């Protein structure tokens, strides 16, 4: 890289050679830093797979994936993941029901309707909401939302999927509104003008032109938010309960995959036991579900960016 000027002294060349060697060392060191992230991925995959393989020598994959009873501790043991999956889907689905419409409507309001002053208040408020630790949301669910739910719906339990779903919904709302908002503001102004010019009202411009044009970006934000809801742990561990079961009743106590992992780790399962390995089998399923959702979301977002540049 060094550019010797005309008056270079003899030992200057030596120095140049030495520093090039040093450069290479530095490059290698920096690559090493990057490699840590690859090692992390490899570590995650290897750990989840090896421990799960141990698990699957004792429990058949079919039983694991199709079994409807999750009962790792009291005999007779049973490792059917469907009840945990049921709990996860119930909470994530409920959260999506809260966050997707509200998040999209917020994004539409901020991009098509709101005055500058409104944006100045609402956007930071949503950013604060996004920065609050999940355990705080868990506290909020237990101490505030659950009692209200139980007052309104007498059938609701002390732990319920509904309480967790509402709070997880509030938690992922800022993500939906900010990423959908990005998608809406990427829609060129000229399209809005074209629609207004034909006599469309603000509602028609928003819902028939801007939202359809931003749809891939909006869908990407939706999927990412659902992935976050599936991965969410503290709210469900505190508010949704620890009862793995097959149910669609949101007022019952359920257990999600993440909540099971927390509950089992609190018990400190000794390594090598089936209970310990079950943690990783559940973790593996969780990992693949969120990875798949994230990849789909990334693909959609990339396609959206391409179509708008």
């Amino acid at each position, binding site marked *: 890289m060094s550019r010797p000027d005309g008056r270079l002294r003899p030992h200057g060349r030596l120095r140049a050679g030495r*520093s090039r060697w040093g450069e290479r060392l530095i490059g290698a060191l920096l690559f*090493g830093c990057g490699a840590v992230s690859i090692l992390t991925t490899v570590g995650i995959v290897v750990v989840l797979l090896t421990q799960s393989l141990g698990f699957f020598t004792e429990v058949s994959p079919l039983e694991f994936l199709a079994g409807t009873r999750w009962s790792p501790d009291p005999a007779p043991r049973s490792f059917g993941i469907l009840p945990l999956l049921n709990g996860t889907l119930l909470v994530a689905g409920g959260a999506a029901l809260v966050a997707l419409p509200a998040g999209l409507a917020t994004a539409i309001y901020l991009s098509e309707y709101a005055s500058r002053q409104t944006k100045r208040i609402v956007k930071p408020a949503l950013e604060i909401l996004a920065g609050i630790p999940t355990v705080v949301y868990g506290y909020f669910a237990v101490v505030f939302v659950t009692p209200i739910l139980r007052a309104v719906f007498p059938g609701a339990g002390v732990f319920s999927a509904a309480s967790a779903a509402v709070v997880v919904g509030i938690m992922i709302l800022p993500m939906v509104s900010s990423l959908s908002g990005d998608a809406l503001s990427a829609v060129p102004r000229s399209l809005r003008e074209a629609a207004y010019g034909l006599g469309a*009202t603000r509602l028609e411009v928003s819902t028939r032109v801007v939202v359809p044009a931003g749809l891939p970006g909006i869908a990407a934000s939706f999927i990412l938010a659902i992935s976050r809801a599936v991965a969410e742990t503290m709210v469900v*561990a505190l508010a949704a309960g620890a009862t793995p079961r097959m149910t669609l009743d949101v007022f019952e106590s359920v257990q999600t995959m993440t909540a099971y992992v927390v509950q089992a*780790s609190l018990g400190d399962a000794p390594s090598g036991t089936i209970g310990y390995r079950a943690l990783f089998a559940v973790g593996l399923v969780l990992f693949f579900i969120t990875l798949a959702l994230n990849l789909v979301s*990334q693909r959609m977002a990339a396609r959206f960016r391409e179509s708008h540049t």
Partner: protein
Amino acid sequence: MSFPSGRLRGGRFEPRVEARRRAGIRFMWLCRFAVAFGVASLLVLLVSILTVGIPALSPDFLANDPSRFPERAGIRSAILSSAGMLALVAAMSFPLGVGAALYLEEYAPRNRLTRLLQTNIANLAGVPSIVYGLLGLAVLVRFLALERSLLTGAATLSLLVLPLVIIAAREAIRAVPGSLRAAAYALGATRWQAIRHHVLPAAMPRILSGTILSLSRAGGETAPLLVIGAFTFTAFDPVSATDPFTALPVQIFNWTTEPQGEFRALAAGAIVVLLGALLLMNAAAVLIRNRYER
């Protein structure tokens, strides 16, 4: 060119302007309701925590260790643990993150390995935090036999926030104008000299602010710490990296699971402290970025 003007006139339109205007107003109020829902959620959350939590704060609360008796319980060990752990997280994730960012922005050739590295980092940022907990449990706690220590917790959280630090540092480095590098090279600097004396100093405020934001994320993490076995009840100060550990969020989790209202008030008090600390960190990040950038 013929123009069939007759047929472009006299079509039957029923624009129903008034009905559409009313539908528009209804829709606007629907959207406003959604906005209000988000903002009100924040307010209710904060108020419900502050009204219970602030009265729980006292010098004793900060100075005491957890206890079975709510009136004597405090968050001393949790605060010290969290602080120690964040210091270790900073010491690990900052050099690694900046190094990886420098590699990707300044050194990496455009090849498949680099692309793999980039997608890998993006995907790591989306891995559930609890999976990092499982990684820490199997590799650090069990395989490397580091046990349930401050170091294990810090290393796990470092891996968790590393992608965030790398992404923030890359953006900071990318924002350094190319002319600065060109000027350094033109003076005969090697690539590393240009980076060390010009690129890094110029990017540092943003790197620092991004790192602090990532640390504040780590400071609020609970799930991975529970998985690797954070102690939900520690009554002594952590002095070395191999000591058993807890953390402020873990303490909040523990108290929230207690059915008695007294413990829940303690949880609210601890949340006030946690949110206050995170707010300070975020404010520091913003200040650093604004102060050193014109």
